[in-house]
């Protein structure tokens, strides 16, 4: 067998994944926390005050990374859902379902910080503009996926049904992202570009990018620890889980 395929196959085996994730986790948490500390420091102390928005613009350092993550995590979830549906890989089911609550958390933060930011900037907590609305719909999609997953008794069937729903809901992602271009809205358009010069000050840009990277690590860490526990629950009849359970017996 092709070595890459072989590795995939091996990764798909729950005990192997459990151990591998266990070894990766401390590093991921460390990177995530360091990144967060650096990004927050940069955002709160280094970045200069915005000439228009004053210090209120500092909310950008949590709002925007979380907004990006809300889209990224959904894509990750749907992609894993697709793999789970087509190739029936248990690990993908687990990953997709573990990603959903994390994505919902990021979406919630995006909505909450966005409306906190909106109050001083637009004079209102909430308007029914296309981006805000589609982001709210995104939160409901996450909640629908989570709700469906928990409503079905059989774990694997539940994961497949929820993954299917996640796939249907993916039409919402482009709407969230492009809504500022398609409709003229209160929410501002893209300022940070991957290619070509960005429109903001470099001292604002690097903390923002640092936060963006740090939230990726945070997601990876949270995802792996959730997936590990979910595997323990899913495989609770298996020997390797039994050994873990007995090894961690609290001494009474």
């Amino acid at each position, binding site marked *: 067998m092709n070595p890459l395929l072989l590795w995939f196959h091996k990764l798909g085996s729950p005990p192997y994944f459990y151990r591998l994730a266990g070894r990766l986790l401390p590093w991921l948490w460390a990177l995530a926390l360091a990144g967060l500390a650096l990004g*927050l420091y940069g955002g709160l102390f280094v970045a200069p*005050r915005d000439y228009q928005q*004053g*210090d*209120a613009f*500092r*909310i950008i350092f*949590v*709002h925007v990374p*979380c907004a990006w993550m809300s889209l990224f995590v959904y894509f990750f979830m749907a992609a894993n859902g697709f793999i789970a549906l087509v190739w029936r890989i248990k690990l993908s089911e687990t990953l997709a379902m573990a990603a959903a*609550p*994390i994505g919902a*958390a990021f979406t*919630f*933060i995006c909505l*909450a*910080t966005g409306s*906190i*930011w909106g*109050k*001083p900037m637009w004079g209102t907590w909430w308007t029914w503009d296309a981006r805000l609305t589609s982001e709210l719909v995104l939160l409901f999609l996450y909640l629908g996926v989570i709700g469906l997953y928990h409503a079905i008794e059989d774990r694997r069937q539940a994961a497949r049904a929820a993954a299917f729903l996640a796939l249907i809901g993916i039409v919402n992602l482009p709407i969230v992202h492009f809504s500022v271009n398609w409709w003229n809205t209160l929410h501002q358009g893209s300022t940070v570009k991957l290619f070509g010069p960005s429109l903001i000050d470099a001292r604002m840009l690097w903390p923002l990018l640092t936060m963006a990277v740090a939230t990726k690590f*945070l997601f990876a*860490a*949270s995802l792996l*620890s*959730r997936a*590990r*526990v979910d595997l*323990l*629950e899913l495989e*609770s009849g298996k020997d390797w*889980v*039994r050994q*873990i*359970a*007995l090894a*961690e*017996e609290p001494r009474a």
Partner: protein
Amino acid sequence: MSEFLSMGGYGGYVWSAFAIFIVVLALDALAPLLKRRRVLRELRGRLRRTQKRNEENT
């Protein structure tokens, strides 16, 4: 310091936004730890019961 905390009058907004960020993500990180404890506790309970029953049967 208090000037820093007041954030040019936007302190309430900025700090509550950062607080939400930190609290929600902290809860997100905590959830799997709690669930892990619960799952393992239930599993150990089940193992004890089967063990006991096997002893009774033999």
